[in-house]
């Protein structure tokens, strides 16, 4: 472990690595692939590439009149480098530290805010209270054990973390994943997206004072967690998606369980929309609050529902499809104003679109194995061990030393409920990663906080923070 690997900067003999080409990207040339990163502000003229980027074109959400509050806040560029404003007397400002122990900071985020009355003039997010060194831990765990580690990062979407890790390891391994395993992966991660968005709408409701919303969101999420428990044995930290496939096949009768869970979620969504959508207080509290422009979202690296609510048409499931998600039809909802209300609408629509994907999987679930046949990567079936010496050796090697991954480096990103979750893996050969870096969506979101929060008042700060859905385990790792 003391010598540097070949691919570190400065080493002239570094092997030239081919960029990983995924199945979906074949046929797209470089220009076309770049276009997927281009943006289109919903409401402006639709460029022609938009139509091709989703099944039915990028959807624009419920158009409404231009909100004057939006116009005021849009384009207010923030001086988060703490420039002095000469117009205000220094004594009339007070510093308040919201968090790390605060009811509404979603864990242990600390907001260092400079207030003028109740108006927040500067805000500085301070992170690190939940740092547990998971990237470093990943270097001490074998590839087999790695997904138990990453599943704890974003504890509201553990399956997405596992999927990302598995995909990046498989990229270096070059193993082929059977279609059933891929479909199971998509099924589980999309259900996870629904569960995560449900918990978001619950905590968002609570933070703007609609206390019942909290229980309602958790109630519907419970149906999905019950299914997860049935499949994986646990409600969170599943360690279900592993390099080479998934840990176990779906249990008998899973179709009925999923349908039942979807019915519960569907009924719940109707409830939420009855409670919130037409509620004038809810509209007052969310519209025109916490605006981020598409340019700012891109500059700060905000992805996922936050960027899409601002009108950035970027969804990794469309731009860089993984696990065969391109074979399912779904739309990417886009917002227009980039405010808290658009984030709410985008997430509610994403729940619906994820349900659409899950319904398609219910119909098209392919038969076959739930993990790869490569016995160097996945353990052999139990009864083969009694019969075959080879199987016994494979079993022993996998569980003692772990499988080996050829040297190289790879980046893989998946669309987690919070945005682009990417993992960059450097392997030196051997059974443990040399370095694993995680690009977490919440981290980028938190660094964009000052853009959205400056010149808001405290209740709006809370609403904005809640609408971003940061998971501090994801930020600090």
């Amino acid at each position, binding site marked *: 472990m003391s010598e540097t690997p070949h691919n570190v900067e400065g080493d002239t003999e570094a092997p030239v690595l081919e960029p990983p080409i995924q199945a979906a990207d074949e046929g797209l040339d470089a220009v076309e692939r770049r276009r997927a990163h281009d943006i289109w502000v919903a409401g402006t003229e639709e460029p022609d590439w938009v139509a091709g980027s989703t099944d039915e074109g990028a959807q624009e959400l419920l158009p409404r009149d231009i909100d004057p509050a939006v116009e005021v806040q849009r384009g207010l560029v923030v001086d988060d480098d703490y420039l002095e404003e000469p117009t205000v007397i220094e004594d009339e400002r007070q510093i308040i530290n919201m968090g790390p122990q605060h009811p509404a900071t979603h864990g242990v985020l600390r907001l260092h805010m400079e207030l003028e009355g109740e108006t927040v003039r500067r805000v500085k997010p301070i992170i690190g209270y939940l740092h547990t060194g998971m990237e470093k831990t990943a270097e001490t765990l074998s590839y087999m054990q790695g997904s138990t580690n990453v599943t704890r990062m974003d504890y509201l979407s553990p399956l997405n973390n596992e999927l990302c890790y598995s995909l990046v390891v498989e990229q270096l391994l070059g193993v082929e994943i059977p279609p059933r395993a891929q479909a199971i992966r998509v099924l589980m991660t999309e259900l996870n997206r629904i569960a995560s968005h449900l918990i978001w709408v619950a905590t968002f*409701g609570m933070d703007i004072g609609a206390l019942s919303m909290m229980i309602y969101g958790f109630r519907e999420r419970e149906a999905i967690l019950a299914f997860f428990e049935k499949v994986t044995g646990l409600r969170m930290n599943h360690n279900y998606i592993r390099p080479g496939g998934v840990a176990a096949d779906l249990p008998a009768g899973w179709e009925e369980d999923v349908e039942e869970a979807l019915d519960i979620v569907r009924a719940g969504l109707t409830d939420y929309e009855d409670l919130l959508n037409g509620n004038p207080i809810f509209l007052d509290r969310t519209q025109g609050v916490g605006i981020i422009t598409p340019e700012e979202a891109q500059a700060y690296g905000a992805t996922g529902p936050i960027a899409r609510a601002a009108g950035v048409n970027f969804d990794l499931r469309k731009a860089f499809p993984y696990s065969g998600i391109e074979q399912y039809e779904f739309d990417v909802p886009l917002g227009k104003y980039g405010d808290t209300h658009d984030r709410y609408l985008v997430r509610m629509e994403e729940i619906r679109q994820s349900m659409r994907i899950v319904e398609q999987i219910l119909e098209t679930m392919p038969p076959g194995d739930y993990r790869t046949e490569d016995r160097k990567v996945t353990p052999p079936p139990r009864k083969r061990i009694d019969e075959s010496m080879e199987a016994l050796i494979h079993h022993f090697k996998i569980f003692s030393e772990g499988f080996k991954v050829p040297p190289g480096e790879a980046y893989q990103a998946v669309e987690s409920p919070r945005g682009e979750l990417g993992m960059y893996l450097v392997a030196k050969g051997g059974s443990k990663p040399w370095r694993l870096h995680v690009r977490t969506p919440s981290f980028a979101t938190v660094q964009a906080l000052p853009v959205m929060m400056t010149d808001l008042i*405290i*209740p709006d700060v809370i609403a904005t923070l809640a609408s971003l859905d940061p998971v501090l385990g994801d930020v600090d790792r």
Partner: protein
Amino acid sequence: MEDFIVAAVKTVIAFALLFTVVLILVWAERRIVAFMQNRLGPTRAGPLGILQTLADGLKLIFKESMTPDRVEVWLYLAAPIMALVPALLIFLVVPIGAPITIGGTEYTLQVTDLNVGVLYVLAMSSMAVYAIALAGWSSGSKYPLIGSVRSAAQMISYEAAMGLALVPVIMFNGTTSLAGIVEAQGATYFGFLPAWNIVLLPSFVVFVIAMFAETNRAPFDLVEAEQEIVGGFHTEYSGFRFALFFLAEYINLFNMSALTVVFFFGGWQGPVFGPTVVQWILPVIYFFAKTFAIVFLFIWVRGTLPRLRYDQLMSFGWKRLIPVSLAWIILAMIAVGIRRFGLPWA
């Protein structure tokens, strides 16, 4: 001397009644909100958990009342008492039943009937804001300070509207005594519709909205908005002092519901029949039934609505409630004038 004894007995009864009601209110709120949210709420202490409030209260009494370092000690200690006393005083003028006659002497079921009852009620309910503002300011801490500034902003936005909402009631009934207002609502329209002041619907709506703000309840609970400013004015209070604030809040909730019933739903009025004792008891039952219906409204709203921002509350108070109240006062004035003097051309 006899008057004094009667007044003393009434005061003690009113006091005991309020505290009992608070025990039930807190329990009822927790149970009802729990049922709205797919939960059970407290079920352990006593039958159906009804002793939960008592248990919580006892726990708070035996907890240490911490005094942080940087407080203004006297104001810090006085604020909880200042919150509780006006809340208790308001109830003194609320008639909870029809007057009863024992041995030729008539006893009213209210501690005292002030002829300026409405003004007294408004004055006392405005006092509560001092407690909150002083508690927040004297705590020497930032979140409570923000809470107390908010409470001042909140008070000036709804207090005027609340007073204006009651002006048509006073004009309509021709009295400011609460007993008088209830008496005036005893008549019927067409022989069966009770002549309650609820016909003054705009007044009622404005009053109810102002009432939510007055009691610092959702959706106007911005003074103590937990998700924003932790606990607001009572962040630095613990133990029994916190219990006093809590008590005052729920007594106020009951008082305001009782006042709504007195002003708009005919107080204890209702069909009375049967022997004398039943005739004494029935009005009291009517009064409490109506009051708890209003309390249920409070709880229902709390389980449903998000919280407003305080700037939205202020603009709502000044730009909507006050103009509506003023316009309605003019209309009511014309209506009352026509009722008393006839049409101008007749």
